[in-house]
């Protein structure tokens, strides 16, 4: 049976080829490529600055984080150090975007489990606040195109710090609400506990990253283990799961929203004055035999590998998308489970087709 590419719970245009025995899944083969836009090839014909908006379209739910990963990779090629204020601003928007992204993950996961629309609407209501903040900062609501090589596009407008602080205050009790509505709901537990258990070794061998890896009990977060920007200045915990089941993966996201709120709160209090942008030329001609830079995206490690030959265009640009590895492990987990469990596992991994088909 073909599940997708047009199916309400495949989150985009993924097609799953299923072999079924009644309701039991015998074999599951994902077919990708329905959203392919050859972004990596396009990169070879764009200047380094021109490519920034294309990164928005990879993981469109967390485009701030994509911008960040790309501009930091280019800055690493140029050996460019951005100002303290820019670093703080980057941390704040990246964490706010992480919250927004995890909200979508939680909402759609609940939707997949059949809690029809209600948790989804709650999550979107909160996400709307984040988007309003971004709208004020950079004028866009989904594809922000906010980061620049050497800083950010605009400085924070007036009064935005208070608005972000208000959001943190507003968001904390809402996360507790989700706990009440979903986390300990008996039906929710029955549906997601011990479903799609991902063992530690399997996760590492498939290079699963992000909350999905941490749910399996591996404490690995680039923000702590390979600190970039000013992440080493903040106090926050890395939530780690125990069993690696769907419930743990969901729980990781809820906990990470809490931790991100902590980071945002600390960063907004410590926001230094200064210029948000370092002046760099319009045409950059970095040269490198291969620079790799990775950041912790909401969905896992996002890596940019760039080879520059000293011209204005990159010679080759390779993107390591977290969802690609995360999707690869799903067929291993769903063999022998019910269709309903397949939907549950799939929702809990929160894969996004935009960055798989680049």
């Amino acid at each position, binding site marked *: *049976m073909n599940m997708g590419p047009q*199916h*309400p*719970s495949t989150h985009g245009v993924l097609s799953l080829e299923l072999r079924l025995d009644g*309701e039991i899944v015998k074999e599951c083969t994902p077919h990708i490529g329905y959203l392919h836009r050859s972004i990596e090839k396009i990169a070879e014909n764009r200047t380094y600055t021109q490519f920034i908006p294309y990164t928005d379209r990879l993981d469109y739910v967390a485009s701030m984080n994509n911008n960040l990963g790309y501009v930091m990779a280019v800055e690493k090629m140029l050996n460019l150090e951005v100002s303290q204020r820019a670093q703080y601003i980057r941390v704040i928007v990246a964490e706010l975007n992480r919250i927004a992204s995890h909200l979508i993950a939680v909402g759609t996961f*609940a*939707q*997949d*489990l*059949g*809690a*029809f*629309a*209600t948790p989804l*609407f*709650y999550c979107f*209501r909160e996400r709307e606040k984040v988007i309003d903040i971004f709208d004020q900062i950079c004028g866009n609501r989904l594809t922000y195109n906010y980061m620049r090589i050497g800083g950010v596009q605009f400085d924070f407008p007036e009064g935005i710090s208070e608005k972000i602080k208000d959001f943190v205050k507003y968001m904390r009790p809402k996360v507790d609400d989700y706990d009440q*509505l*979903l986390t300990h*709901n008996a*039906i*929710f537990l*029955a*549906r997601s506990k011990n479903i799609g258990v991902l063992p530690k070794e399997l996760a590492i061998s498939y290079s699963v990253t992000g909350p999905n890896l941490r749910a399996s009990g591996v404490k690995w977060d680039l923000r702590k283990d390979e600190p970039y920007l000013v992440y080493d200045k903040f106090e926050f915990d890395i939530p780690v799961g125990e069993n690696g089941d769907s419930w743990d993966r969901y729980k990781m996201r809820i906990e990470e929203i809490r931790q991100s709120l902590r980071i945002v709160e600390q960063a907004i209090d410590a926001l230094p004055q200064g210029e948000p942008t370092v002046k760099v030329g319009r045409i950059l001609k970095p040269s490198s035999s291969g620079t790799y830079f990775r950041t912790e995206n909401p969905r896992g490690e996002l890596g940019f590998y760039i080879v520059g030959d000293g011209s204005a265009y990159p010679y080759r640009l390779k993107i390591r998308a977290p969802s690609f590895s995360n999707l690869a492990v799903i067929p291993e987990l769903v063999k022998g489970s*019910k*269709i*309903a*469990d397949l*939907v549950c596992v799939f929702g809990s991994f929160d894969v996004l087709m935009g960055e798989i088909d680049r």
Partner: protein
Amino acid sequence: MLSILHFIWMLIIGLIVLSFLAGSAMFLIWLERKVSAHIQSRLGPMRVGWHGILQSIADTIKLLLKEDIRPVKADKLIWWLAPFFVVVPSVMAFVVIPFGKTLIVKDLNVGILYIMAISSVGVIGIFMAGWGSNNKYSLLGGMRSAAQIISYEIPLILSIIIVVMHANSLSMQKIVAAQSGYWYIFYPNMALAFVVYIISATAEVNRTPFDIPEAESELAAGFHTEYSGMKFAMFFVGEYTNVFIVSAIATTLFFGGWHGYIFPPIVWFLGKTYSIVFILMWAKWTFPRVRVDQLMGFAWKVLTPISLVNLAITGWLLLK
């Protein structure tokens, strides 16, 4: 002569029942949209009439004008008949529902048994829809529905038997009359029976958390995937009529039917019924869906034993 008058009389009553039923289904659809909207911090329909009250009528007109699409490989007869098999039994169940002391179409002496028998026919319609559509998702939906409704029929009937034992009658009016003092819900064993009843009834009418035959996120709509236009609307009307009926039965069996003070009986009856409908809606928009095997396990391992024990205790109490 007499038989012609009788026939006209039947026709009038039939028209009244049908128009009430259509109005009730439309009202329930509007109510569901409003309740769900307010639960989800939305407004819901607002444009057509006061707070969108005429929305259902507008939708009906739209659905009537839609093209009736039939899949080429569908089993014609079965596919065509299925919506009627869903709607007609739920209309027939209205015959024995007591809205007031005299407001009942026909007080059959086997009233509750008649409802149970009639409402089981609906599952055949759903199964026919699943089979006739010639679509794998629909077939899965139909199969699930058949399994589910047959399993939940048992605890449902067991909990109704408890009421019947107390009331000493199968007639709906006599059951209501037996509750002129205390409503049955105030007896502990009946309260338990009510809980079992309302859970099973939710499963019977395929609503969340037991809506696996439709299972939007798994089966893309289940048994009615291939239906469009008025045929789809008939499944919808059937579903909402069933919601009304299970709530009306709950009112009759456990909440004293039309008994109440000050207001006329019909107000009490409809008020109680719609309160139960509201609870069903509340549950629908709050809970996730259970899995198909968990659903079966719950019916056979939890609800059925509880009902059997409850039945035994009730029997012992009555004989004592």
